[in-house]
């Protein structure tokens, strides 16, 4: 079967269970394609030899009752993987080899998956284009010199380019949904507390969430089913009844009430995005759902709030990188000099910028004016959603205010880069689940996504809406394999 890498996760699982394919066949196919795809720069660390060994071992005694039987999967390099280098896209962790495994990756290995390698991302997940990675830009399989989005840029590129059947990313302000939108793939940011944060390199702890990225909604549901578990090792992990998301998936969304928030019509938004949104509204109506105009009045305050809360938490989380216990160390004249040089040489420009913002807003005399103020506004933003959900079951918005942009186009203007996350950030601030699905193309042929936002712990509902819409949209990603010589 020459087209193994074109198959969805669901198809691969079925073919392995029916013994039409072995884990070795599948693993070999994805390794071969990954080898031919170096130009995408999607991987930071390849673990191919070990993956093939594991696949052969699986085939000797296959356990076909597992949900991901012998399926090779590459994951974002923000998840600690035991004995496999984990860098978070940073020079400061360039040589870090964890001695333990993150809970979400442990979950997929327990269900039969095999690690293919670690995927490129913005440094410490801070970025919207994968351009802040110490390991270089990632190419978008859609077109040459186009960013794949970020921070899960390597993950999005690897799924769209069929280097891995599915992947796990993380999303603090849009880092799963925005790259999914830029690459014509599906990405789910689960409810805060759904997936354990144990073993994930921390960025902003009150916002970080791991989630699945896939070619289609069903694959996304299956992966979410595996990674979402209660974990006592994460104090914010929540013990709630989790659905069998892929088994319970249905396209019957008749009678569902979908909110359309007027405030997401932002100044300067291209007409293509508005048109796409209107098409999305028509699709959900065609599926028998009802749309209702709603208001989320504090939407425009979400980004400024995020750029206080996230850097504040980051400045505290990243204090641990001091050149003493692990990671890069620079030479210094004394202890303080060593700290300062280690952090100055080990962190890239965007990370330093955010540590500085965070340090400033938490510093004496500014705490109330910035940090406390942002936490109050965060409450107002969450209240907007609470009010809206008295009237509707879910909310439909565009995923991003534009399609993917060229590498280098926004690197000199941090604020214009931040504006990419205008539709995704409010969801993190409120701790809600959100999914981006590909919904059309712009005039350049680049993919555009729509976002469905749900109530807390209502992943099943937004997956169902996404599943129903996916059928109507019938999106085809335009991948020409331009990078394969």
């Amino acid at each position, binding site marked *: 079967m020459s087209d193994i890498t074109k198959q969805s996760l669901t198809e691969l699982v079925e073919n392995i269970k029916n013994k039409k394919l072995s884990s070795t066949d599948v693993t070999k196919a994805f390794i071969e394609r990954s080898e031919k795809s170096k130009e995408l720069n999607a991987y930071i660390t390849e673990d191919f030899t070990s993956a093939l060994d594991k696949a052969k071992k699986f085939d000797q005694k296959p356990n076909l009752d597992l949900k991901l039987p012998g399926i090779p999967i590459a994951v974002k390099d923000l998840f600690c993987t035991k004995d496999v280098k984990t860098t978070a896209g940073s020079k400061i962790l360039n*040589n*870090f*080899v964890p*001695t*333990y495994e993150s809970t979400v990756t442990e979950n997929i290995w327990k269900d039969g998956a095999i690690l293919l390698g670690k995927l490129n991302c913005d440094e410490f997940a801070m970025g919207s284009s994968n351009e802040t990675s110490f390991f270089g830009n990632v190419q978008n399989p859609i077109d040459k010199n186009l960013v794949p989005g970020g921070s899960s840029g390597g993950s999005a590129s690897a799924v769209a380019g069929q280097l891995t059947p599915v992947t796990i990313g993380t999303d603090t302000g849009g880092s799963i949904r925005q790259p999914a939108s830029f690459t014509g793939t599906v990405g789910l940011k689960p409810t*805060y507390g759904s997936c354990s944060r144990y073993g994930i390199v921390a960025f902003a702890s*009150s916002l970080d969430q791991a989630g699945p990225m896939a070619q289609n909604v069903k694959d996304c549901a299956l992966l979410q089913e595996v990674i979402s578990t209660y974990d*006592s090792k994460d*104090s*914010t992990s929540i013990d709630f009844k989790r659905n069998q998301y892929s088994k319970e998936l249905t396209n019957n969304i008749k009678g569902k009430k979908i909110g359309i928030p007027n405030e997401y019509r932002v100044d300067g938004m291209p007409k293509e995005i508005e048109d796409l949104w209107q098409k999305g509204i028509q699709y959900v109506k065609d599926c028998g759902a009802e749309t209702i105009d709603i208001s989320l009045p*504090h939407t*425009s*305050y979400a*980004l*400024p*709030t995020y*750029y*206080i809360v996230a850097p504040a938490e980051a*400045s505290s989380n990243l*204090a641990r990188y*001091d050149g*003493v*216990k692990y*990671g*890069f*160390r620079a030479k*210094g*004249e*004394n*202890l303080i*000099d060593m*700290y*300062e*040089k280690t*952090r*100055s040489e080990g*962190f890239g420009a965007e990370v*330093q*910028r955010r540590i*500085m*913002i965070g*340090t*400033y807003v938490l510093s004496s005399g500014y705490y109330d004016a*910035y940090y*406390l*103020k*942002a936490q*109050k*506004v*965060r*409450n*107002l933003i*969450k209240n907007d959603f609470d009010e809206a959900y008295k009237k509707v079951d879910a909310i439909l918005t565009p995923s991003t205010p534009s399609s993917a942009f060229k590498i280098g186009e926004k690197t000199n*203007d*941090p*604020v214009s880069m*931040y504006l990419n996350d205008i539709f995704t950030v409010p969801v993190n601030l*409120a*701790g809600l689940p959100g999914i981006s699905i590909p919904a059309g193309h712009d005039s350049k042929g680049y993919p555009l996504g729509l976002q469905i936002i749900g109530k*807390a712990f209502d992943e099943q509902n937004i997956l169902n809406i996404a599943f129903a819409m996916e059928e109507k949209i019938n999106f085809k990603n335009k991948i020409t394999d331009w990078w394969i010589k």
Partner: protein
Amino acid sequence: MSIDLKTIKHISKLSRISVDEKKAEKLAGDLNSIFDFIEKLNELKTDNVDPLTSVAETTLKLRPDEVKSKNIREQIIKNSPQDNEDYFVVPKVIE
């Protein structure tokens, strides 16, 4: 709102990141444009709003205070840039 070079030097000291003149100027420019954008929050009156510290509406669970990771000294110092078998080594702090 304007963040001057003196403030940048102060923040860089607090965050333990060394900053030379050139980098300080670039940072001042970037931070000023970011804070101009953040100032928008001042449009809102929030005197009677409670701060939101956690979106997860649960109380933290208690657990028995037991040691679960034993004999992991080797693992802990495995990634240290400079170690001496039993402990982390840093530049001399006591003369």
